[in-house]
């Protein structure tokens, strides 16, 4: 049905192949760069086509999961039994459609930006090769129809990220950062693999038991449509472990504690890479995966709670670190870690579509911020330290204004995109109805406090960079006089992204207190079946007409499906219209509570932005080290990133290396080889005794063979004799 969706992946692959194999021959950076961008434009156009096509078909229920066949990838077909069947196929469903739209769109803008940003770099064809390959892998990740295919993309983006972080490989530090990213991600992949094995074990057993020979235990569609049936017969411990192992994988890719350490270091790559990979797309794949397999995470309230805690905790930790960093990209990196924490917080409380909502808005404003920082770095000729900036607004107006808009968006200022998504997350935490309700109120306050810090550190980095007195280095002033605004290929993406950072929130969702009645939530309705909405929950429970059609191979009557959908909505209540009560009703209706909470958080953010403005403009001088003096050890704790890298180094890396070399020396070199060489010496000595003449070893060997043959013959004769006797 959607066969042409493969084009979306094929375009960037073709681009990568052309630039990879012929880039040197073409030897024209303009052609290479615009070729890469054009391929992405093709991808984006395909994504749009898929979206409109998907919408126009009016698919219902289980039909909303459309598998696009490719070829049989890994299949073990026995005489009568099918042991394993994994297709190389795509899954078009609301979640993948949503993801592919913003991924191809933003990637296209970032490619365009890179044509200018990287225009002075000799390695430009190589850069576009990796960048195109990255997008292809990212699309495989979100479009893959089964877990192994997702894993292809999962590892593929990891590889491209490794190559791109270490793009300027002549500097060993960059290469080290790339390696750190890859290996940290591999730790997460360990979790994915174990989670995958467990899913296979449980689902495959179930499918066999029920004679569902066509179902594949690793296929997303089959997993989702049978989720509740299998999860209900599974032991709660198994369900919990599956969720936790998978979440370990999500922590790796999406930079959550304790695997967040690679992301800030990943800033060693060229800035467009930071924007594309480490802000807008790759790091959201953990959130994608959790949403994709949401029944597994919802099966057990404990796993949800753990996810929420890690999310909120990481959000808080990263925000405290971001407060003191001086490198403009480091601040943004920690801010990304922190925002990803919010997304997992939403996943943890079961508000999967809200997590995806924040993924989208975050992609716009964070990409804009990163590209803005790239524009600054470009304009300041490779200066990244905000202490040496200041007063750039005058020279880089477009960069300045887009940066400010995005800062306001991430800070959650009404009515920008971040306001809608972040406030909805806070609200969902507040109304979370579970055995951990008490703890959830703590998570709410933690998240709110994190929002406060977010507004402050984002204000800090913005004002410090663009306002106040210029603190440029003498060398910079001598060489370049003053910074310059970037050219159009760089500023157009900034302006587009800033526009999206303004409008994308309100388009996708409007809360009830603004509409004066029911909330307007097109995104939630669209994502419903994929993200655990009311209809989705019915599908996972397997009880709908659509589900029956799935088993018996008939088509469900649309009317019936619709009725069922409505029934469920009424019965279960819309998650947002909130028949759950928030944990701290301030009197009055739910709607007014929500409104008060929203106003509260906007007010806090505004105050923080103003405070940071007062502090970092005017006669601010980093040389005074006012903050260091005022906060002492707290400042150091934050500045040194909670010492987590040091801890890992001392408890994992160094002992690991020590142990490995000791193990090798003691075991291989001394013990085993000691024995072997000892035996050899003894044999050698015996040989000397038997044959005083020094012999070559081959002769020895021949002798053995001969001895063997003789023995062989003797025994054979003996057995003949035996046979004759009996």
């Amino acid at each position, binding site marked *: 049905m959607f066969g042409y969706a493969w084009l979306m992946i094929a375009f960037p692959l073709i681009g990568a192949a052309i630039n990879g194999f012929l880039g040197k021959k073409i030897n024209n950076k303009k052609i290479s760069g615009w070729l890469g961008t054009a391929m992405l434009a093709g991808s984006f156009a395909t994504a749009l086509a898929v979206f409109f096509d998907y919408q126009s078909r009016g698919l219902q229920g289980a039909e909303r999961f459309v598998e696009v066949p490719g070829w049989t990838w890994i299949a*073990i077909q026995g005489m009568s039994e099918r042991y394993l069947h994994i297709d190389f196929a795509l899954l078009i469903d609301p979640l993948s459609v949503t993801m592919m739209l913003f991924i191809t769109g933003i990637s296209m803008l970032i490619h365009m930006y890179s044509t200018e940003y990287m225009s002075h770099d000799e390695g430009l064809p190589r850069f576009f090769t990796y960048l195109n390959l990255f997008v292809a892998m990212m699309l495989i990740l979100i479009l893959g129809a089964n877990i192994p295919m997702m894993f292809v993309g999962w590892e593929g983006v990891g590889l491209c990220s490794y190559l791109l972080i270490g793009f300027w490989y*002549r500097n060993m530090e960059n290469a080290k950062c790339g390696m750190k990213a890859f*290996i940290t991600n*591999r730790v997460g992949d360990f979790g994915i693999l174990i989670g995958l094995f467990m899913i296979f074990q449980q689902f495959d057993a179930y499918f066999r038991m029920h004679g569902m020979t066509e179902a594949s235990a690793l296929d997303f569609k089959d997993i989702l449509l049978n989720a509740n049936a299998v999860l209900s017969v599974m032991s709660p411990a198994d369900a919990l472990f599956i969720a936790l192992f998978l979440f370990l994988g999500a922590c790796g890719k999406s930079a959550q504690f304790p695997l967040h350490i690679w992301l800030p270091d990943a800033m060693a790559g060229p800035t467009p890479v930071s924007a594309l990979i480490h802000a807008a797309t790759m790091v959201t794949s953990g959130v994608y995966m959790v949403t994709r397999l949401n029944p597994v995470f919802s099966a057990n309230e404990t796993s949800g709670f753990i996810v929420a805690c890690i999310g909120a905790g990481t959000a808080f930790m990263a925000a405290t670190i971001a407060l003191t960093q001086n490198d403009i990209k480091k601040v943004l990196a920690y801010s990304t870690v922190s925002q990803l924490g919010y997304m997992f917080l939403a996943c943890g409380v079961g508000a999967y579509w809200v997590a995806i909502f924040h993924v989208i808005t975050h992609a716009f404003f964070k990409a804009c911020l990163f590209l803005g920082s790239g524009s600054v770095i470009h304009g300041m000729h490779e200066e990244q330290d905000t202490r040496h900036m200041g007063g750039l607004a005058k020279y880089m107006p477009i960069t300045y204004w887009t940066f400010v808009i995005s800062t306001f968006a991430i800070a959650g200022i009404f009515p920008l995109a971040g306001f809608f998504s972040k406030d909805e997350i806070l609200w969902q935490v507040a109304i979370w109805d579970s055995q951990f309700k008490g703890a959830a109120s703590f998570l709410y306050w933690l998240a709110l406090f994190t929002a406060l810090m977010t507004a402050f550190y984002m204000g800090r980095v913005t004002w410090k960079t663009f306002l106040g007195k210029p603190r440029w280095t003498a060398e910079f002033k001598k060489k370049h006089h003053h910074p310059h605004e970037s050219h159009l290929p760089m500023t157009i993406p900034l302006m587009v992204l800033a526009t999206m950072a303004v409008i994308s929130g309100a388009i996708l969702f409007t809360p009830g207190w603004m509409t004066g009645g029911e909330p307007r939530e097109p995104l939630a309705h669209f994502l419903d079946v994929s993200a655990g909405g009311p209809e989705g929950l019915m599908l996972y429970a397997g009880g709908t007409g659509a589900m029956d059609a799935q088993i018996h191979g008939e088509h469900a009557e649309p009317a019936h499906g619709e009725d069922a959908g409505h029934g469920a909505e009424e019965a279960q209540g819309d998650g947002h219209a909130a028949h759950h009560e928030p944990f701290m009703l301030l009197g009055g209706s739910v709607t007014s509570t929500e409104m008060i909470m929203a106003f509260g958080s906007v007010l806090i953010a505004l105050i923080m932005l103003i405070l940071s403005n007062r502090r970092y403009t005017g006669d601010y001088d980093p040389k005074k080290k006012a903050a260091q003096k005022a906060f002492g050890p707290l400042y150091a704790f934050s500045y040194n990133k909670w010492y987590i890298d040091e801890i890992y180094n001392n408890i994992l890396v160094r002992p690991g*290396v020590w142990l490995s070399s000791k193990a090798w020396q003691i075991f291989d070199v001394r013990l085993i080889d000691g024995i072997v060489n000892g035996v*050899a010496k003894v044999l050698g000595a015996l040989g000397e005794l038997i044959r005083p003449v020094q012999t070559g070893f081959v002769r020895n*060997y021949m002798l053995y063979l001969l001895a063997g043959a003789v023995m062989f013959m003797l025994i054979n004769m003996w057995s003949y004799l035996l046979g004759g006797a009996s």
Partner: protein
Amino acid sequence: MSSLLLIVTFLPLLAGLALLFVPNKEQSLPTVRATALWSSVVTFVLSLFLLPSFQSSSGLQFAIDVPWIPQWGVNFHIAVDGISIWLVLLNTLLFPLAILTSMQSVRLREKMYYILMLVLEAAVTGVFLAQDIVLFYVFFEATLIPMYFLIGIWGGQKRLYATTKFVLYTMVGSLLMLGAIIGLYVKASAAGYNTFDIPTLTSLIGDGSLVLDQQFQFWAFLAFFLAFAIKVPLFPLHTWLPDAHTEAPTAGSIILAGVLLKMGTYGFIRLAIPLFPDAPFMAIGPAGLANLRSIIMALSVIGIIYGALVAAVQVDVKRLVAYSSVAHMGFIMLGLFSFNQIAVDGAILQMVNHGISTGALFMLVGFIYERRHTRLIDNFGGLAAVMPVYYTYFLIIMLSSVGLPALNGFVGEFMILLGSFQEDWLMTLIATIGVILAAVYLLFMFRRVFFGEVTHAENRNLKDLNMPELVAITPLAVLTLVIGLFPTLFFRHITPSSEAFVSDVLTHADDDFETASTDINVEDGLGGFVSFNTNGGDL
């Protein structure tokens, strides 16, 4: 078709014998090289013709079965099935490539060198085709002689130590195996079956016509086990491997890692397990807590972790790759002995995969050794800028070895772990950590060799890969992607053969369960879906 099998086996040998008559002169060297190369290329092309007429569902085929030593029941019986066909093809593919790389590097006693290579090729093909135990043993031992000289004459500085160690180790195992073979023959002929024929014996034992007592099975299996486990090599019998690899000439390492190690794992599939199917399930140790199968799985897992850790601290690239082999072969052993269909299929494919990627890694190390005459990681750095093509190939092959999805290594490793997880989750959990470690040691080495500034002046003007080198490495790089994306092409032939193997073993495990003799550990034999919470405690 039967004669094709004969030609594929003996063409290299004939070419080698023919070379004996070429005069030992400088002028005749081109002839020698060309003969070696083209005879191996022709052998490969001919072996490809096995594929179209291969019937995946009909077991052993293209058989040639003629009496050899009739009074002992020894036959010259060769045939190919869905498992061995891929190993034969791997072998016939790797030899021309190895010979091609040798033409760039070997300058000492070349005629002798190529003769030995061709003899080796014939012997290895013979091992994979032999369907008679004596014939198998003859080929198995025959591989030792050329390899001994290849390392001993064309090897590095410590070549004599390495080659002696290699032969000593291997011989210990194979002598014990010889004893067990004789014992088996005695038992079989006492029962009225005067034969060494592998399919015959396997089916006799499989359907219970020939019953071997438990005591004998145990010791005979142990003898076979030792011979094959040394070849694999299974931890802790691996210490010959790093020395042999480090000292061997490039082509020697390619062949050693590529096919010689596979003779060990293949031996388990073809001989050790089918002939003594009860042995892996026999309880041993105090209170019958363990059985051979669980011990072998444990050793495999230790090998995976240990090999990876030790690889990480090596300073010599070749030694690093050698230890990585220990880890990778551990995966294959784990998959085989889990006796799970998915894992066994994965293990068999991984035998081919390992041959390709490790063979290619040794080839790549050889390329740089030719230029710099060193293999120490510290002597390199920044090569990505100097040799971009070399860098790209190294990257692809390294990623295949790391197990990046969509490349070949992933498919095998993934299936091994997926399958063995169903049988023993704890072992698999630990083994999966090896997947992380593989990235650690390979990326760590890769970074120090290729990234950073060029620190040694000698490396500044290194030439990138030349045409013969490209021709040698490209097929392997392409194969990593082909197998990674279309492994079903291989499984189509593998599965029917491996399914018979697995079901035979499991039948015996179940029988053991039913007869419920006290010394049989039943839990491991049940191939079903044992829950996450209950299984695995038996180790």
